[in-house]
């Protein structure tokens, strides 16, 4: 299926250390265009760090990351350009509090990509409408609920027209009632064929959205499997233990 598409992001032997302590070790992963990869693993295993390495928020100590075939460890890599192609949404609501919803969304496209305001505004309105928040476009972040803020953060990243989106536990800080509305937006993106890497602790969602599950344990990839197989019949003992925690 999606394996036939071309490889968009390729991680080869990636190694990340803090001081002498390895946090990620020999990570190998190919993400195809249109593929949804869900990264699972217990707290502290290195999931966030992996995502942060992918868009240069963390330096890496070994291996390589290639975006559309171009190495991101190259000395001349222009991160501003790369980051336009990699959208990221974090766990904490990271909207800029001094700007309205619309200003938040326009900042990147108009200042970084130098696109015409009118055109961006149209796209922003469409995206806002799709997440059901067009009527909040002139509000400030503090006037919004957590779930609304996260949906805006997703729109803000999407408005840059990225090739791939990274989501780091975007519902972890949310009230349970609001988790659904955010996950629905991400599910919608998956249906449209957006390439995504998603870190989550919502197992039901992972199963529903993923084309591929990557299970990380202590900084190493322990298992890569299709979701049905991973959840019904995990191959490794560590994955079995991990899944048991969620079974109540």
């Amino acid at each position, binding site marked *: 299926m999606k394996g036939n598409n071309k490889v968009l992001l390729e991680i080869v032997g990636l190694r990340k250390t803090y001081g002498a302590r390895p946090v990620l070790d020999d990570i190998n992963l190919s993400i195809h265009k249109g593929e949804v990869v869900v990264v699972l693993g217990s707290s502290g295993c290195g999931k966030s760090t992996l995502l942060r390495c992918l868009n240069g928020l963390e330096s890496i100590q070994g291996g390589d990351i290639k975006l559309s075939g171009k190495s991101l460890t190259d000395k001349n890599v222009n991160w501003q350009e790369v*980051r*336009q192609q990699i959208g990221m949404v*974090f766990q*904490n609501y*990271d909207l800029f509090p001094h700007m309205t919803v619309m200003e938040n969304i326009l900042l990147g496209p108009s200042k*970084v990509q130098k696109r015409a305001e009118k055109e961006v505004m149209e796209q922003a309105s469409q995206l806002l409408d799709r997440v059901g928040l067009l009527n909040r476009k002139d509000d400030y972040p503090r006037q919004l609920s957590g779930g609304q803020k996260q949906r805006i953060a997703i729109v*803000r990243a999407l408005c840059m027209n990225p090739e791939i989106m990274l989501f780091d536990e975007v519902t972890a800080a949310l009230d349970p009632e609001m988790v659904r509305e955010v996950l629905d937006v991400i599910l919608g993106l998956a249906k449209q064929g957006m390439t995504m890497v998603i870190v989550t602790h919502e197992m039901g969602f992972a199963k529903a959205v993923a084309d591929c599950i990557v299970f990380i344990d202590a900084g190493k990839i322990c298992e890569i499997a299709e979701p049905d197989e991973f959840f019904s019949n995990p191959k490794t003992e560590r994955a079995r233990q991990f899944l048991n925690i969620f079974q109540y």
Partner: protein
Amino acid sequence: MLSSGINVLFEGSNMQRLLGGLLITAQIAFISIIISSLLGIVVGLMMTLKSRVLQFVFRFYLEAFRIIPILVWLFFVYFGVTNMLDIHLDGEIVAVVVFSLWGAAEMGDIVRGALESLPKHQMESGKALGLSFWQLYRFVLIPQAVRRMLPGAINLSTRMVKTTSLVVMIGVIDVVKVGQQIIERSIIDFPAASFWIYGLIFILYFIICYPLSILSKKMEMKWES
């Protein structure tokens, strides 16, 4: 007797001279505050960069102004430096230089504190959008820091206005000096001259500084709503 003394304010060109002195005071303070704010942003920004050398240099710079009295700085530049370089500098210029350097150091520290108090993920989400270093500061960090540093900056500004009274010591005729001159000359005719002259100066300082604190309150309220 006191009530008759009030006339000293309107004798001859007394009022005009006092206001002229006030203008000098306000000029020195105003120019110094503007320069301090601009330099302060640069200093504060550099202090947040993780360079140990820069941090050490600016720390030293700030402490130099905190430990050594401003009066000594004024004397040092007005008499010492000019003597050493064999140039003459106007007292007003020296005052602006010293106050600006002092203000920039203090303002830098205020800006640094405000920038460092911003949550780290503000910077990261800006970076993740592809903003350049300057765009990040210009659109995301500085506008948020300004709100946090406003109370400190206004407080510093009023301190600077008040400290301008030291400039008499390097020969600048500011409002306090004009007041003294008038009192010396009128004391025979108006025994209560000091009360009225200093009373007026008292009010004049209040008039300069009070709008600043009103301004800061207004801005804070506007940003809170």
